[in-house]
């Protein structure tokens, strides 16, 4: 177990380092990163001052080392627009995005997994059809479109729910459904495949042959084994939910990090954008690490390093 733990930790550290490297190079794609760090319409002297102050006159490998060193000290730089540390701006928005992503995950898991199990158990029967149709609809609907349609129906026409902003728990309902829909489809598909896979195994036939009712075989044995791939998907989906928040938060004026990202791009506040990308990626790496460890806890085959 200890060996597995160490190798997984090392892998996560390596990935983190890789993510930082990619972000470092993407920020330099435009040729001159200094132009991204000064307010629009800055004078030439101002640009040169910033270049010297932030060390962009140094060779690129030194810039890279400084960048990595800064990140290790949790320094994400100071916003050039608001003149406060980028982390402080980011931190004030994180709770909103976490609340939204959490609610969306609830929607996705709460509808997706039962739908997937139902499709697997009733495979080929007529009621698989409507569920399958719902799943493929969720997969084909852009988040911003389902968001707009819900605003049209529930906020503009029926006036049941607030159309945007944060005003009590009711305002999270529409953004969470819009954000969770794509993940719901993913969960449903994965749960279906996992359960179908398990249902074809010998132990299910043995259980049925001994006279156990199908419902009992599924709840007692199949779901436990099918849970493993679903846990991995849940971890992967967290990243998609956090990233999808960029669009949903813009549609619903939800004051999380997604809305912040778009606002920061519009005001050319690139250190804040960079901080958001790094933050979301690191959360993603951490969640996947946690899922792998949980996995190893559930399944002894992984822990012992056997196939």
């Amino acid at each position, binding site marked *: 177990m200890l060996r597995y733990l160490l190798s997984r930790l090392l892998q996560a550290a390596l990935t983190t380092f890789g993510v930082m490297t*990619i972000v470092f190079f993407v920020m330099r794609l435009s040729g001159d990163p200094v132009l991204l760090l000064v307010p629009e319409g800055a004078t030439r002297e101002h640009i040169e001052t910033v270049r010297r102050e932030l060390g962009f006159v140094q060779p690129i490998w030194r810039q890279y080392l400084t960048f990595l060193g800064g990140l290790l000290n949790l320094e994400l730089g100071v916003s050039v627009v608001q003149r406060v540390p980028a982390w402080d701006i980011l931190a004030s928005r994180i709770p909103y995005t976490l609340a939204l992503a959490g609610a969306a995950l609830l929607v996705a898991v709460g509808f997706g997994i039962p739908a997937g199990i139902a499709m697997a158990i009733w495979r080929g029967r007529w009621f698989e059809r409507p569920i399958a149709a719902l799943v493929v609809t969720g997969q084909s609907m*852009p988040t911003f479109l389902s968001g707009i349609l819900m605003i049209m129906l529930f906020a503009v026409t029926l006036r049941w729910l607030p159309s945007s902003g944060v005003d009590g728990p009711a305002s999270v309902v529409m953004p969470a459904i819009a954000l969770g829909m794509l993940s719901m489809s993913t969960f449903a598909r994965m749960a279906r495949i996992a359960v179908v896979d398990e249902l074809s195994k010998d132990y299910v036939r043995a259980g049925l042959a001994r006279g156990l009712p199908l419902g009992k075989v599924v709840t007692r044995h199949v779901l436990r084994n099918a849970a493993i791939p679903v846990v991995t998907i849940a971890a992967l989906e967290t990243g998609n939910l956090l990233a999808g928040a960029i669009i949903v938060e*813009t549609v619903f004026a939800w004051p999380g990090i997604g809305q912040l990202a*778009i606002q920061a*791009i519009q005001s050319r506040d690139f250190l804040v954008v960079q901080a958001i*990308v790094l933050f979301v990626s690191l959360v993603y790496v951490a969640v996947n690490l946690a899922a792998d460890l949980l996995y190893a806890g559930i399944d002894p085959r992984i822990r012992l390093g056997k196939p």
Partner: protein
Amino acid sequence: MSLAANLRTRLARAPASIIIMASLLGAFVLMALFAPLLAPFDPARQSLIQRLRPPGHTTAQGLTYLMGTDDLGRDLLSRVIHGARASMLVAVASVSVSLLIGSALGMLAGWRRGWIEVAIMRFVDIMLSIPAILLAVLAVAVVGPGFQTLILVLGLTRWPRYARVAYAQTLQVATLPYMRAAELAGAGGPRLLLRHILPNIAGPLLVVATAEFGLMILFEASLSFLGLGIQPPTPSWGTILSAGRQYLERAWWLTAFPGACLFLLVLSVNVLGDWLRDHLDPRSRPRG
């Protein structure tokens, strides 16, 4: 049976829903190809007196706006038809770029093994741990929006998925006896990869490509909606929807028509993709 022949016989036995979705996709492809011929108006021509006209509105000169007009008095139908072009072009081009890079690197990693394998597959893992839409948003924001940028950014951020599949498939195929035979017969690396491995791993790659095609259409629309994709005045469904959002209460057609097109296009791609997967991958084929 070859891949194409296999598909042809299966297509002949396809259910009605598949035929409908295939025709729908075909219609969108034709719409994109022949947009200038099909559009009744110039999609960029503005008219201040014809702003926000409802669908079916006929002017004094006898011109009919079948889908109505937008906030600048441009014909919505023509813009929607031209929007199909932007969608398709970005999706086709970015899928090609990522398919090419991903399958080349994946095959190389699976074939050469050793440190090349470790380096490539580590890089794939790292790329996959940055949420794609976020990486695309950052890259577009840095480089500046536009058509080519969009294609390059999407193409260069989405290849790891193909690389993973190509890698796993190559590992399997490379151990088969016929590969050994080809090698002993004197076939070199490029020949082995292109003539003997690629045809055998094309199916799974095609399945990934279809799924990605739908996703790329969504990404283009989403980025354009955020103002980071196709730039006005070039029509794109995402930008039309973004403008229409401000007129939700007054002009429903600005949201309804491009929204319906976007949904139907992605739906047809996804349904066909699922069908393709079920028929190329025996493991997920429904029994009975």
